[in-house]
């Protein structure tokens, strides 16, 4: 497992840091952590990742997420989480991580042959 964030952000590997503008770093927005935002579209659905934003703390992140991502009833619930707290699989783990989907066909209902005459199956 790696220490990479969900969507990447500034810690994405193979991404050289961009040249700085030369402006002195203040104690303002530049230092705010990156939050990933998840929205539940309506009751009964999962929260789904919709994007990211910067905020000084969790509470402000929720408020900003509401303004940026739910101006038209797009959601009934919002999660925000600091990107640095998300652990994720890496692209290079693709084969070993997800292989069981391919070689355990008996996990799928179509593996089992049931006569068509059996009702409600």
């Amino acid at each position, binding site marked *: *497992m*790696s*220490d*990479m964030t969900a*969507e*990447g*952000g*500034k810690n*994405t*590997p*193979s*991404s*050289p*840091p*961009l040249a*700085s*503008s030369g*402006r002195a770093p*203040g*104690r*303002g*927005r*530049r*230092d*705010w952590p*990156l939050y990933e935002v998840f929205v539940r579209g309506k009751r009964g659905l999962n929260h789904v990742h*919709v*994007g*990211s*934003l*910067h905020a*000084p*703390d969790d509470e*402000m992140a929720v408020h900003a997420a509401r*303004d*940026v*991502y739910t*101006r*038209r009833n797009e959601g009934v619930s919002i999660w925000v989480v600091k990107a640095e707290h998300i652990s*994720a699989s*890496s*692209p*290079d783990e693709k084969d070993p991580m997800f292989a069981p989907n391919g070689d355990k066909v008996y996990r799928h209902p179509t593996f089992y042959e049931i006569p068509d005459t059996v009702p409600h199956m």
Partner: protein
Amino acid sequence: MSAPTRDSLLDDATLEAYFDATIAAGHRIEPRDWMPEGYRNGLIRQIAQHAHSEIIGMQPEGDWLLAAPSLRRKAILLAKVQDEAGHGMYLYSAAETLAADRADLTDKLIERRQKYSSIFNYPTLTYADVGVIGWLVDGAAICNQVPLCRSSYGPYARAMIRVCKEESFHQRQGYELLMTMMGGTPEQRAMVQDAVDRWWWPSLMMFGPPDDDSPNTAQSMKWGVKRHTNDELRQRFVDMSVPQAEFLGVTLPDPELTLDPESGHYRFGAIDWAEFKRVIAGEGPCNDERIARRRAARDDNAWVTEAATAYAEKQP
């Protein structure tokens, strides 16, 4: 300390072959995939320019917020301007997945090291301009943006889907505003025609330079970042706009505009690319004003973000 990754074990040629195969299969590139530096930097440039356009684009219409003719129009315009801010945020979010930094991008805009759409360097002289911006400028933006919903870079495509859902409201409110004014007094109809006269050609320039003068287009299309050339999208926009102008009862300011019965497309006159280049170079009517206001927004509001940071640091 982590184990060597696949990326560190494979050479660039092999990684690029994976990348090319992903795009050839019509699959999306996602943030943590290996990608050529040209792809990454080209996307950052394009997405940042797009984000800056949304943010600067709040200004021409924002000028009319306090002068809207009714509470209804004011509420609509406020919602639209707020949407433009939101679109800018979606796009900065997408740029950040490429290792760009939002504050850096804003600094580059203010220092004129990155560009925004030339269209926002024209002034909004009357309230009819608000309607024409919705109809033509947002209409042109929709032509540009709908194909970008299939852009090869996942976060950009997803941001564009959100943007396009909201742009439809923008265009329709503008057209409805114009229909209302065209049903009004002769003076109101003249205002609409005057606004159309001023915005038509700059709207055509929004699609960028002609294909034979657009050096990045071929590579952008090969990588699936762009799906159509500038000239293709411009033609599509003209074909959509002519019948809408006829319905509205306004004349598009181009004596050469005619339907070519063979192709079914409207032929239009020559675009003044010298003007386009002047405006891009910073010599449009409002370039200085737009940048000055963006700079003031950053600097004058810095105390708010500093206060929020100080408050957050004091929390247990």
